[in-house]
């Protein structure tokens, strides 16, 4: 499948090269005297799940916050679908189709599922009055068909606090999928989840691929990243230490490389 896509891409390249979904060129980020990102160059392709790996302090968080518009790069450029991003903000990146699923779960516990699904993009008229029926109906679709909720006890009117951690992340991911985010950034989405809940989130991530979207998946665990990712970008002390394709490396080799990187500072 991925081979077929690659072939058609390289064939198209001759006529008109299709730009990658996201391209970062020489992106630097400095906080005071600390160089957190040092000339980062990377690309995220269409329908590609990329694992972003690196030890604590490698700059993973800063990198994704630069993509989502939380931080502005000190220097360097970002291109999205081939176009240079000039003014960047959280709001703008969402409008362009970049969604983030945070480890701290961007859901409000006391509010209902449908309210959480539509937070920040409610269906409403000019005066802000909501079309609640439509929002509930679409939430129902999302729950039953994307997330596989079958329980009758949980409805769109259920408050989020009654859901398990995995189900909550499921809502966050489904929300991004439903609103057609092209690039979904998953920042340690399984931290604080049980084993079975983690597996559910893994299934949601496979769904991102199946539906033709792209994702950047950040996790400390190679065992979580390896099964769902197509490619791995290794970040070390603010620099891209290397890019590895899944077909070129086994899970154990990747794990070993990461450990060696910490020891030697070189990606073998």
């Amino acid at each position: 499948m991925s081979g077929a896509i690659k072939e058609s891409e390289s064939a198209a390249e001759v006529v008109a090269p299709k730009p990658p979904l996201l391209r970062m060129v020489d992106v630097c980020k400095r906080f005071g005297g600390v160089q957190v990102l040092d000339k980062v160059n990377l690309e995220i392709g269409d329908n590609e799940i990329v694992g972003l790996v690196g030890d604590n302090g490698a700059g993973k968080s800063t990198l994704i916050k630069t993509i989502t518009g939380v931080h502005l790069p000190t220097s360097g450029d970002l291109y999205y679908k081939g176009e240079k991003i000039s003014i960047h903000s959280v709001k703008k990146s969402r409008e362009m189709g970049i969604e983030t699923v945070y480890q701290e779960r961007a859901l409000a516990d006391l509010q209902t599922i449908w309210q959480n699904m539509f937070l920040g993009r409610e269906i409403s008229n000019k005066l802000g009055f909501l079309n609640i029926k439509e929002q509930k109906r679409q939430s129902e679709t999302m729950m039953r068909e994307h997330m596989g909720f079958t329980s009758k006890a949980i409805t769109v009117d259920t408050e989020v606090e009654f859901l398990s951690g995995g189900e909550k992340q499921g809502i966050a991911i489904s929300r991004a999928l439903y609103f057609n985010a092209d690039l979904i950034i998953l920042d340690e989405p399984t931290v604080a989840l049980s084993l079975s809940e983690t597996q559910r989130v893994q299934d949601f991530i496979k769904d991102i691929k199946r539906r033709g979207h792209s994702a950047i998946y950040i996790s400390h665990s190679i065992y979580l990243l390896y099964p769902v990712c197509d490619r791995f970008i290794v970040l070390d002390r603010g620099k891209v230490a290397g890019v590895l394709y899944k077909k070129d490396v086994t899970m154990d080799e990747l794990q070993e490389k990461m450990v060696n990187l910490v020891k030697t500072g070189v990606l073998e």
Partner: protein
Amino acid sequence: MSEQNGQVITRLPEPTFKQKIARSKIEISIGMVTLGVFLLYLIGAPDVFTHYQIYYSFMTTIPITGILALSLTFVITLGEIDMSFPSTMALGGLTMASIFAATGSVALGVVCGLVVGVACGFVNSLLIVGFGIPSIVGTIGSQFFFRGIVNVIAAGAGISLLATQTAKDSGVYFALAGKIPITESDKIPMQFFWFVGLGVLCWFVFKRNRYGVHVSFVGDNKLAAQMMGVNVKRVRVTAYVITGLAAAFAGILSNLEVSYYYPSQGEDIMLPALAAVFIGGTSVLGGRGSVVGTFLGALIMGSLEAGIISLGINGFWIKVFFGLIIMISVSVYSFIMKRST
């Protein structure tokens, strides 16, 4: 939108009767308490409570507490509080009375009073949203400050709205505090219609409008709201402006009802208005509020004093009853909320 994605639209299942009840448990509880309290009045003092006069009296007094409480529902659902509204009320009332005394125009007085109320809301916003001061601290400060300005300007003197020219001839007076005759002897004061109308408006904004939904979200999880693109600062500023506007309006209504401005206006309204919000089921922790609850809470808080006196109980007992009602109702909410989690 779902058709664009090529997805099947699911039909929404009708909620069961049980689910409907569970969703409105706060409103149902406070509704039953209100009914109970008024039944108690009726049984204990049938002479008073089978005659229209007491209800007329309620319809002039309760709207003032009620309108304040309705506006406070937003700021409290945000998980914040406004302690300055009694002083804002006095400042708005003073502005209205002074402008009327100087120009003879009720309309101009009302507009200026409301503008001052909005300005007070912005002062609070500057402290709390702008400088990041906790709301209870910031509004205790502004509460003294606004009251201080009232003391300096009024210098302890009241202002009559009937002195050289009467406010009662104005159309604005009629619209705000006029009396609508319903039978030969009985009338309904306009304040009552304002209370009900604003109650309905608040309910729609709270439950059916983007703003109300955002208030609940910000009160529940400010960070989540921010990450999902809600303009948290604007939501918070708007809440303080709503309270300021409502406080000034309450001051104006109070002026017009008695045709006199008392410089002590609002001094004993703080706790009953806040209590109305809390016994209505709005959580001081934020994220959960009820406009219906506040409306009913205001009916209880606003009727308790007259009710207890009519029951023939010594007036010294009033605060005991206030305390009991508040303590029991918030304990009941704590219980039903815990049981549902």
